[in-house]
């Protein structure tokens, strides 16, 4: 769907922020739970429109880093700026506004089983109080983009794993977020479905969304050849540029 290379030009740069500006910045960030550190002194920047892989063994801190980006966790030390907001200092009432601009996809999909596919996607628009007509139109368009418009009246449990992840992706992208965070989005999928999902993720990046994908699937990282951050025991041990040697 999209080829490797520099990030595609942004379709709609946010006001006051040039294309290529860092949307995510971490300055010496640590996260500890009691005496054990999940992240230790991590500093990095991700620019607008970049697609970045986050890799490392289990327990390296990938999920913790992802959670910090949508304020599901707060840093123990250091500063995190996401879309110009200091996540560490964000008040609880400020979290929803951040999350409306950061789409999130998980390995276990996190879909509401009792609601239809369309309703699941619509949720991201409904929390913003969008009018029903717009909610329906955008949900339908987004489901069409992930090839599931014909399944919109079904419930998630009747869908395959790949289809469910496409619904989750549709929900994450329907608000046209500035950032897409995907934590092992293909962890539960076979090789063919993995590529299906990753092509959709790469297409979002091509449209100007900043994407961070956590994965330990090295074949995937080689195939897409994007910038790759490697964590080990909570430390950032490697930052390879797009197309860089591995």
């Amino acid at each position, binding site marked *: 769907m999209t080829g490797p290379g520099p990030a595609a030009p942004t379709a709609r740069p946010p006001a006051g922020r040039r294309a290529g500006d860092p949307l995510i910045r971490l300055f010496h960030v640590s996260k500890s739970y009691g005496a054990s550190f999940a992240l230790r002194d991590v500093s990095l920047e991700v620019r607008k429109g970049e697609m970045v892989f986050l890799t490392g063994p289990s327990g390296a801190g990938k999920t913790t880093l992802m959670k910090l980006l949508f304020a599901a966790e707060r840093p123990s030390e250091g500063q995190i700026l996401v879309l110009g907001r200091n996540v560490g200092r964000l008040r609880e009432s400020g979290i*929803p506004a*951040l999350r*409306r601009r950061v789409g999130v996809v998980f390995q276990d999909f996190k879909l*509401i089983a*009792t609601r239809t596919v369309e309703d699941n996607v619509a949720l991201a628009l*409904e929390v913003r*109080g969008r009018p029903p007509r717009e909610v329906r139109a955008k949900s339908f368009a987004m489901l069409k983009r992930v090839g599931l418009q014909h399944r919109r009246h079904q419930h998630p449990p009747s869908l395959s794993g790949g289809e469910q992840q496409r619904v989750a992706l549709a929900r994450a992208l329907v608000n046209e977020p500035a950032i897409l965070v995907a934590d092992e989005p293909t962890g539960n999928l076979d090789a063919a479905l993995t590529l299906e999902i990753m092509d959709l993720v790469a297409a979002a990046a091509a449209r100007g969304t900043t994407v961070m994908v956590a994965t330990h699937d090295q074949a995937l990282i080689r195939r897409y050849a994007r910038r790759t951050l490697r964590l080990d025991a909570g430390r950032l041990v490697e930052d390879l540029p797009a197309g860089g040697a591995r």
Partner: protein
Amino acid sequence: MSAFFHQLVYFARTALRGLRASPVTSAVSIATIAVAVIPLGGLLVITGNMRALLDAYGRERHLTAFLDPQLADAQAEALARHVGALAGVAHVELVSREQALERFRKRLGGSALLEALEENPLPASLEIALRPEDRSAERVRAVAAAIEKLPGVDEVAGGETWIEGYARALALVRGAGAGLGAVLAFATLLVVANTIRLAVYARRDELEILALVGASRTFMRTPFLIEGVVQGALGGAIGLALLYGAFRVVVPQLGDALELFLGWSDPSFLSARGMGLLIGGGAAFGLVGAAIAVARTRIS
């Protein structure tokens, strides 16, 4: 504004979905509120009727002056005019001996005892209503004393002794009602709060997902509050309907006893305001119960 309206529609839909998703717990909650509303509503009916009787008494008759049986009709009328001009008197009605007998007969429903009477034993009387500012026990006694001194007046019945007793009984019933109300309200709050808590737990995965897509706390909590309000209002309405049914069945059975002991000749059900109070009160308790539940359950 329109975003607010769209969210309101979403909240209502979500709340109804929630009620349908757990029909048994919702039904238990509604039934509890209904059961609590019945005794409270019953007490409101009782106190309402007692109050109405006192008010009617206050409006119509404060003092009754029994007249000398020897008094001619014209003299009785002159006396009535005189009393009507006294300070503190608002209105006077002359009840002739015939009228008194007629009333007595009506009240006893054609008793054989009356048929046996050869002569009318009842005196004519003046029913005297006092001005609102002259209805204190002190003023009533003063006016009664003034009337009692008038020639042609045998005796003045104040009625204030039974009226005070009746007023005390009303205060007692009200006090008992307030106590019972507090206990029932507390029990209702607990049941609603627990029902809504169960609903919150049942939907915690959904709430987690809502939080991830950027729902505010208000957005997540409001449907539960609406659920509480709907349960409360439904419980109130059902309790009220059951109470009305009981009222229609029980009152005709007890008609004579109610008249004899409480002086209710035609007891009335709750006023529209009273009914609104019960349903609105149910809704309010539903809301407070739900608010307690969501405040005590971590939603973020």
